[in-house]
């Protein structure tokens, strides 16, 4: 079973040379730490920066240079700042190659819910609805089950949706799954995790074809 860093490490393998990548808040933010350093990747944060670098050294934080999660950041050589309309032009106009975001629920037809728990949590959807509606290449990073042990990979989402039919890949602490034909296809198992464990933790339709390899991370 993977921890949050393990999930990020596995997703980092999906990041290719020359990609512009948008990272969501939480596990997705960790992905930047594991991208190979022999490839060139530019990270976009939808509040208005392309070419995001690592966190600043202590004492060098700038309140005017933050990411969408409101964390202090730095910029890389070649970075740029822009307004929110330009930022979402990059996203809506499909100029960003890969979007990685967290989720509370994903359904077998690719619906995603990650912005609201009615009566409990209302932080707002931020850029999540724009991202999932526009991006062709979306990877969801999340734990396979919630704190009560219930599956987050469902036949149908129970929470208010962020987007419909948009998720194609999910990486969890247990597995890598692809979504197609309204089903979850099991691609890889986390180290030491059996197919049976994944099956039991997946409420949606899970297709298991042949021998399922262990993740190489």
């Amino acid at each position: 079973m993977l921890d949050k860093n393990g999930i990020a490490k596995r997703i980092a393998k999906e990041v290719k040379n020359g990609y512009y990548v948008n990272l969501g808040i939480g596990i997705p933010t960790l992905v930047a730490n594991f991208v190979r350093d022999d490839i060139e990747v530019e990270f976009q944060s939808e509040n208005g920066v392309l070419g995001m670098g690592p966190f600043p050294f202590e004492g060098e934080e700038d309140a005017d240079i933050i990411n969408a999660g409101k964390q202090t950041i730095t910029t890389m050589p070649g970075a740029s700042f822009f307004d929110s309309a330009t930022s979402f032009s990059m996203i809506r106009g499909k100029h960003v190659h890969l979007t990685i975001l967290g989720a509370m629920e994903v359904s077998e037809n690719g619906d995603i819910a990650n912005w609201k728990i009615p009566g409990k949590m209302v932080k707002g959807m931020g850029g999540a609805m724009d991202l999932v509606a526009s991006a062709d290449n979306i990877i969801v990073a999340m734990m396979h089950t919630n704190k009560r042990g219930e599956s987050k990979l469902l036949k149908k989402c129970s929470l208010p949706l962020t987007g419909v039919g948009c998720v194609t890949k999910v990486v969890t602490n247990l597995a890598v799954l692809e979504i197609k034909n309204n089903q979850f296809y099991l691609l890889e198992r986390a180290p030491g995790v059996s197919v049976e464990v994944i099956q039991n933790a997946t409420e949606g339709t899970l297709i298991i074809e042949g021998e399922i390899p262990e993740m190489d991370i």
Partner: protein
Amino acid sequence: MISSYVGENDEFERQMLSGELEVELTPQGTLAEKCRAAQAGFPAFYTPAGYGTEVAEGKETRDFNGKMHVLELAYKADFAFVKAWKGDEAGNLIFKGTARNFNPLMCGAATITVAEVEELVPLGVLDPNHIHTPGIFVQRIFQGEKFEKRIEQRTVRQRS
């Protein structure tokens, strides 16, 4: 209150959940474009964001090139209050870092746009090549007295 992401604002969340505050949550890119549309004189636009979700409820939808879109209206206000880094007496504005965000889009998306700047300079000091928002979109400008820049999530790395 029309907003996109209120994050860790517990007081806002309390007011919203208790019904004290009427809130319309809007996708961030849609909110940006609603302001830009008002500034640019467009009454409305189509976006794929929010299709199939509660955000699209009651709104006109339309298929473009096989993909569904939601009709969103421009958001024209009576007043816009923005904050910039530098400005001059003509109302020209320059923003700093990621503090640009919605500010340039809200300028002119209202009848009266009021800009607070950290530094107000005489005409001719700012290079016209570097202006982010031309003064035509700004009706009032003043230099703020004191700027306390709070950091919500102070994240740093250790020197090795």
